[in-house]
């Protein structure tokens, strides 16, 4: 691991355990400390604050109990309500108060088993997902809190466990969070999470693909190529990665290799969702070299596979215009007018981001690991689990 990675982890753990005594956590089991004292902003005890903290902790425990009892719809919403109620956007210290209260509960529960961190992280992850889908603007500090809780719990889990399995789980938490950020056009924070995810598990293919896409969108084709070549060592047949590699090579002027990759993909006919893009961009490569005959041939092959594809029709019409075949170009356009509107050719939009499907694997691993540990969390809470089910 790099120094940068170590310092990042330390920073994250330090944030989460800000209220634990400094002498405690590095050498000892941090969960064995006896309780956490919540301080107000001036550092002194405050009775009204204490009451508030008690209320938060009680409510937090109730929500965790609901989560383990299988109330998967209600618990994340209740958590959102609790956190939004405590965190005031104009008062950053209010987030500290919430953080310390939740930490205290997590600390107590974690004393029984580190494994409780996984379903708790999943609960915060779910809350974050819902907050994002409802609009960041309504409670930006609560949104940040939800994301950081999920992230810090994942990092802490891996830090304290040290097992390969914990690295895989933590890496998927970060990947899924990054995916959500990316969906909301937060490229740089997303890249940071993907980078951390890869430090935890270098075989995390979705994180590598997503990081390459961020590089690509940030006009850094060299970095994207490097990331994609690493990915293809792990999964040589990854169609999207191969296509993105070809596109980035084209950007770098390495058109011979780009054309070779695209020709191989067109010949193999198993390019998945990027299939139509392979024909479009291979034809463009020929067209840019004014090789209109090959550009036409590629598009005709593409239309053989995707006969109702609007964009392939348009592109072929433009090539035929260039070749002087105006009549056939016009016929093609007439066909486009008759095709079903919006017929499944939004691949170009998908290419400009990362498809949500990319992160399904991460979510699935996360959900499985969370579900399998709900009983441990239930035991720590002293409440029954939903027959081993429940949670996400």
């Amino acid at each position, binding site marked *: 691991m790099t120094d940068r990675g170590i310092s990042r982890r330390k920073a994250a753990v330090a944030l989460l355990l800000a209220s634990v005594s400094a002498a405690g956590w590095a050498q000892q089991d941090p969960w064995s400390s006896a309780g956490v004292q919540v301080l107000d902003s001036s550092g002194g005890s405050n009775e009204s604050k204490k009451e508030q903290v008690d209320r938060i902790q009680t409510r937090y425990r109730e929500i965790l109990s609901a989560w383990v009892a299988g109330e998967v719809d209600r618990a994340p919403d209740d958590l959102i309500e609790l956190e939004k109620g405590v965190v005031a956007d104009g008062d950053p210290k209010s987030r500290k108060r919430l953080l310390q209260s939740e930490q205290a509960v997590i600390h107590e529960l974690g004393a029984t088993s580190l494994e409780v961190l996984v379903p708790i992280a999943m609960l915060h992850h779910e809350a974050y997902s819902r907050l994002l889908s409802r609009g960041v603007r309504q409670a930006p500090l609560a949104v940040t809190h939800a994301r950081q809780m999920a992230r810090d719990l994942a990092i802490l889990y891996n830090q304290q466990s040290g097992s390969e399995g914990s690295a895989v789980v933590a890496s998927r938490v970060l990947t899924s969070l990054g995916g959500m950020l990316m969906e909301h056009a937060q490229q740089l924070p997303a890249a940071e999470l993907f980078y951390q995810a890869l430090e935890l598990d270098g075989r995390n293919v979705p994180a590598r693909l997503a990081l390459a896409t961020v590089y690509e969108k*940030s006009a850094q084709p060299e970095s994207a190529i490097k990331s994609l070549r690493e990915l293809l060592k792990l999964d040589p047949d990854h169609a999207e990665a191969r296509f993105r590699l070809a596109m980035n090579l084209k950007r770098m002027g390495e058109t011979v290799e780009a054309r070779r990759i695209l020709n191989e993909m067109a010949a193999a006919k198993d390019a998945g969702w990027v299939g139509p893009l392979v024909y479009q961009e291979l034809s*463009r490569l020929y067209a840019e070299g004014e090789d209109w005959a090959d550009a036409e041939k590629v598009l005709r092959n593409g239309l053989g596979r995707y006969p109702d594809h*609007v964009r392939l029709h348009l592109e072929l019409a433009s090539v035929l215009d260039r070749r002087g075949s105006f*009549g*056939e170009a*016009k016929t093609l*356009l007439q066909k486009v007018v008759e095709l079903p509107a919006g017929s499944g050719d*939004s691949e170009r*939009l998908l290419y400009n981001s990362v498809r949500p499907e990319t992160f399904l694997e991460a979510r699935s691993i996360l959900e499985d690991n969370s579900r399998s540990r709900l009983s441990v969390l239930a035991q720590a809470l002293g409440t029954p689990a939903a027959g081993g089910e429940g949670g996400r």
Partner: protein
Amino acid sequence: MKFLTMGLLVALSTGAAQAAVQPRIQSPAPDQAVFGEVDVSVLMSADEPVTRVEIFVNGVRRAVLTKPPYRTKIDVGDDNSAREFKVVAYGASGSTGTHTVATDAIRIDEQMEVRLQQLFITVTRSGAADSARVLDLEQDDFRVVDNGKPQEIVTFGKGEVPITAVLLLDTSESMQGERLEAARRGASVFLGGMRPDDEASLLMFSDRLLRVTPFTQDRGELELALAETEAVGGTSVNDFLYMSLKMLDSRIGRRAIILLSDGFDVHSVLPIEEVLWKARTSQSLIYWIQLDSDAKEKSFNSAWRDHLGNDREYQTLKKTVEESGGRILGIQRIGELEHAFASIMKEMREQYVIGYYPTEFKKDGRWHKINVDVKRGGVKVRVREGYVDY
């Protein structure tokens, strides 16, 4: 069982014979219009020596070639009609292969497109607002120069020339809500200004084609299509601007595209240079109602292009519009949309339409620069800057 085996052998033997000699007509191309002396070119794929290639036009044998290259000229006459070209190739073993290509007749409007150059000319008083049009000019007041050579004006018209328009509306996600409603109202104002002889097509796009209607004079049909579209997805201006230009290729009259978009293309497969080339071979005006025209941030990266590439696209789109003889109408507030659509309709009604047959027409792909002068002083002329002879 024996019969089946024999049948299989026969089938295999037939298949081998078919594959042995396979001609393909390279020229003329399918759907191409041909007349006069036509270059017929045949590409041969053969596993054995080819002894003879016969070329038929409309069922009549017109040429026999006995050695490569299998290429010849055939005079098919000057009548404007569809024709069938068929080649039959004979292999040394007696095997044969055939290939047929059907060519089209040229439609009258296509003939007009390739020969008659039509200019849509806006004349305003110098120094005055763009709306201060000069409307009392006659044919003799104009002088058209094509590549430095004066041209004879053969057609002259004013507001009476019918309009054929494509309303090209960007209905990407950023247009949701009030913006889409305002776009609908604006387009509706334009449709309301149509006369019985005018026709329009409505094309709504995002990163994909959302809706396109055929050209129609039925305003109700267009209004219905306008009401039914939602705003979703990203933006692909280039692809659908190209499509609009192509749709107008075979139309007649005063052809125009009215594009409503912020102009930030993200997802097109066609670069704007390709659209510019198409526009230069077209005779259509392009008007661009540019939303958010005061937006300071016009530079962006995408997975498809970096910010320099996107900047070039944006600048070339502006150039494409200006070269066409149309103009950019910058909109800062959506409340201005209806006025923008109405002013385009008014401007088109107040244009002069001049036609001429260029004295030089070589189809050599060269740029022809057009200059239009008006005898009267104190006026400003806006017209497309030229065309590609293609």
